């Protein structure tokens, strides 16, 4: 299996939200729906505060609880990768996958009612391009690539910098990394 991942440098992210706009434009999302979002995390006590900006989305987990819980196979892995997609023609809208995602990364498509989510822009990945959010970032804080390939930019960054993933304790084995 090819394991794609994202590495996002929280030291560079300024929380501008361009990734969010790029995703909405690229994937033509209806008003009010978002596949990615930016979180500002403030830690400490005044005046000793630190702030971190994080661009978040589906983590395309190696242990994808959403896929395991889907009763119809609508939630599935794209080709032989960890990219989690939803096949609208198989989705009943039972919403089990939404409840199964600890990151609340899924959404109900309006007005149709099937479930939608970040696709890592697999239509671009297929052509060798980066996902729209990664391409649009003005600070170049986001990187995309194959995690198990030691020479890839994402692997080299992970080898050289301190990092974390979100909600490691859920056991979902997320594949979006944050450099800290």
């Amino acid at each position, binding site marked *: 299996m090819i394991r794609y991942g994202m590495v996002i440098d929280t030291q560079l992210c300024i929380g501008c939200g361009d990734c969010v706009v790029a995703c909405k434009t690229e994937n033509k999302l209806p008003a009010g729906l978002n596949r990615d*979002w930016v*979180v500002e*995390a403030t830690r400490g006590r005044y005046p000793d505060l630190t702030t971190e900006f994080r661009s978040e989305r589906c983590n395309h987990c190696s242990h994808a609880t959403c896929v395991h819980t889907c009763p119809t196979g609508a939630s599935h892995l794209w080709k032989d990768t960890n990219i989690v997609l939803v096949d609208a023609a198989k*989705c009943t809208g039972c919403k089990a996958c*939404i*409840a199964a995602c600890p990151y*609340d990364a899924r959404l*109900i498509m309006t007005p149709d009612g099937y479930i939608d989510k970040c696709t890592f822009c697999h239509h671009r990945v297929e052509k060798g391009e980066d996902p729209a959010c990664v391409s649009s970032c003005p600070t170049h804080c986001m990187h995309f690539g194959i995690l198990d390939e030691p020479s890839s930019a994402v692997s080299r960054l992970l080898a050289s910098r301190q990092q974390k993933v979100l909600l490691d*304790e859920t056991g979902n084995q997320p594949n979006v990394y944050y450099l800290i």
Partner: protein
Amino acid sequence: MLEELLVTVRSNPKIDPSLGVWSWEIPVYLFMGGMTAGIMLFASLMVLLAREEEFPFVARKLPLWAPIALSVGMLFLFLDLSHKLYVWRFYTSFQPSSPMSWGSWILILVYPVSILLAACTLRQGYPWLGRLVDRFAIGTAILDFSCRHRAVVAQWGLVLAVFLGFYTGILLSAFSARPFWNTGFLAPLFLVSGMSAAAALVLLGTRNEHERHTFTRIDIVLITVKLALIALLLVNLATGSGVQIEASQMVFGGEFAIPFWVFFIIPGVMLPLILEYWELKGRRRAWMFISPVLALYGGYMLRHLTVDLGQTSSYLNYVNAFDPALLDLLR
């Protein structure tokens, strides 16, 4: 201190600001499913233990309510789907890792068994319905078939009832992402609660003093076990991981404390328990129909609150200051 603030818009309907994908339809489905399990369990036991004369209502009238309750439950499950036209997709694959997939296939087995279990009782239990069915050759054939294979049907009924009852709980407890649901106590709790709902139906329907007395005693035991399981569930959560501890605290303070204690535990569990105990002691006969009604109410509330609590409990704690009404200004 850690404050995590959403700085871009996130207002995905039913997911933000807090998860609410399932409202009352799924609790109704779980309640009806549990009640079906309870009915089939009692009805099958009467056949297998050869107690049909002793418990006329359970043996002859109750079984028909299993397919009815199941149909109502499945209707509400259907109503909850947000992509309804694709409902048939449940039956184009079997996903062994998905409790919901197991559930859909279990229902396919439960349905005919619940009908066969009821079929043999129709002529005696609901003579007018029996006569109606007997007007059709196929109807007579089904009734005769179900009576010929009474014991086998009851054996299947017993096993499937336990599966169905457990399934209604496992459906929720399998969601590791929702701390309040992630406890093994939900499955036995929902099974016992389903049995208690079926016992309440018996108390509402029977005219037989011996049957009423026995099922009052059965229901007292079931409600007591239910209470113990609720306590164990809370202890289990309160001694679990950080997010589970937080989840358990929701019933002791905050927005769920009053619904949980004032609208569920007291009227839906404690009161029927006390009333049924009084009935056993021969007091308050005029109240008799109130305790089973309260027990049924408690059964529904258990599902409703569990579904709500599970969705509210989360690993995330983002502050979402966005007001969706602002979107309209942009349109």
